């Protein structure tokens, strides 16, 4: 399982980077989405994958004796997903605006910022 996830993370990072290096704006966004999913998967993987119970100690017991699943990576991934949800929706709107204003989706044509004004 770990091995598969590691391969998957690598593929997501590589594919994301490849997409980001394309010149199309849409592919840029897809690349960003892939690479951030790769990062989420990496957190999940590095948080140790154990099948266990939620780490909630019963009122009567002193310590948690069972195998437990670490809840922190899940909380981190949830936060990261929520944040990337906001960022990606902003990115999509921005790309749409950029396509309307600049009238191209080729990143090489976006040179206005380098012109002397």
């Amino acid at each position, binding site marked *: 399982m770990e091995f598969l996830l590691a391969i998957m993370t690598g593929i997501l990072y590589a594919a994301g980077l490849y997409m980001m290096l394309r010149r199309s704006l849409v592919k840029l966004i897809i690349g960003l989405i892939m690479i*951030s999913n790769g990062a989420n998967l990496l957190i999940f993987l590095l948080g140790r994958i154990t099948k266990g119970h939620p780490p909630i100690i019963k009122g009567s017991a002193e310590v948690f004796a069972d195998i437990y699943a670490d809840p922190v990576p899940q909380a981190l991934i949830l936060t990261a997903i929520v944040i990337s949800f906001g960022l990606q929706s902003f990115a999509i709107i921005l790309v749409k605006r950029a396509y309307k204003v600049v009238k191209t989706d080729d990143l090489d044509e*976006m040179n*206005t*910022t380098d012109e002397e004004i």
Partner: protein
Amino acid sequence: MMQQLLLYPLLWQLFMSIALMFAWQHINIQRVMSIVGSAVGLVFSGMLFYKVLVYGTQTIQAGGWEAPFGITFVADTLSATLVLLTSIAGLAVSSFSSASIIPARLRFGYFAIFHFLLLGLIGAFLTGDIFNLYVWFEIIIISSFVLITLGGEKAQIEGAVKYFTLNILASIIFLTAIAVLYGLAGSLNMADLAVLIPKIENRGLVKVAAILFLIGFGIKSAVFPLYFWLPASYHTPPSAVAAIFGGLLTKVGVYALIRVFTLIFVGDVLLDEILIVIAVLTLFSGGIGALVQKNMRKVFSYLIICHIGFMIAGLGMFTELAIAGAIFYLIHDIVVKTNLFMISGIIYRIKGSNNIKSLGGLYKEYPKLSLLMTIPFFSLIGIPPLSGFWPKISLIVSSFNTQNYLVLGAVIFASFLTLIVMAKLWSEVFWKNPVDLPKREHFLYFNKMTTTRKLQMLLPIVFLTGVSLYIGFGAESIQQLSTRIAGELMNSQQYIEAVMPKS
């Protein structure tokens, strides 16, 4: 109530942005609220600064969960100082933007987002948890995306695409670094990590995490090979937005670098050497970039990059004196860079252009204003006794002591380049004979503004100039402050003990 003082600057900005959202359409109310609110925020930050100065490092465990498990907020002297400076710059820019930004932009919730940005900045300075730092960075970049695209001009959108892509990439790299760090140490609390990381045997992976942090924060603080988003985007938004960006956004990256590399990854010779090389190249490339630009705000953008190099150099040499110099430069730079972008905003309002070829004769038309503007110009160059001069002494002395002659040369060369750039700006913008510019229709020129609006634009500049004059003439106290900060950073034990008592 006063035990919670640490969070008040933070909570106040959150309160401000929510209150401003309720007054969405009423921009006159928003203007007054934002200025008054920023002033109150400054009072809170001043109180926190005073408390930290007198009683030492303050901590709060959010939600009452104890240190390595919950999210900790820590205010040591560095954090408190930067929060104070953020509030100072925030007050100035709030007043400046209420006059200089056109109502059409203000109606899209400019002020609410602006206070959200300040919230993110203060949160990033105060947090003691590395993942929480990531969250604050995201808050900063989301609000800065909105601010940079507000208005939707062609150049702005294009600049935003570049800014956006590289900043998100930086965040993802930062997140990857956090993942590696959590996998290694199983903790996210920075004080806890400072204890755990030196004990880890897998040094290679620790080094990988460190390099990932360096790249992530390096993009954000615009160091040498990673700075290209900055000059492509910082001159596109209105000058008030550029002022808060130029003054504070890159400095958060520098703060994060300083925090991570003095607390968590300490004593790695390779890293220090990498930092020094980066610093030297940043100083060179930023300075030379500034030399060839013709747009005033692009010149300042390149100077931001150039001067980031001073701070990174101080961090790279890693002696107490060098870090004190870097901190002093950070304090000076926040005030002066914010001021410079506001000055470029006023010049834009006077002339309707920011191209230095088509400007001129400003000294003849506005002699008093020009004299006011000289002070931040000279502070930036570092003419003694103004504020840019003192930190360079510390940097140069410590580069002698540690025999980093490359840094010595780069510091002097970059100062020299800054001098040339500013002299060129001065002669082109202020002394050259005025160039006849075509009058722009529907453009609010400075001399057609009401007196209140003029004062709203001028007073922040006077205020920040006063602050940088204080930093220059009161250099003794600032030097003591930065030495104290450097002492705290070099001896991280007190930070750890403040977060986790009797560990």
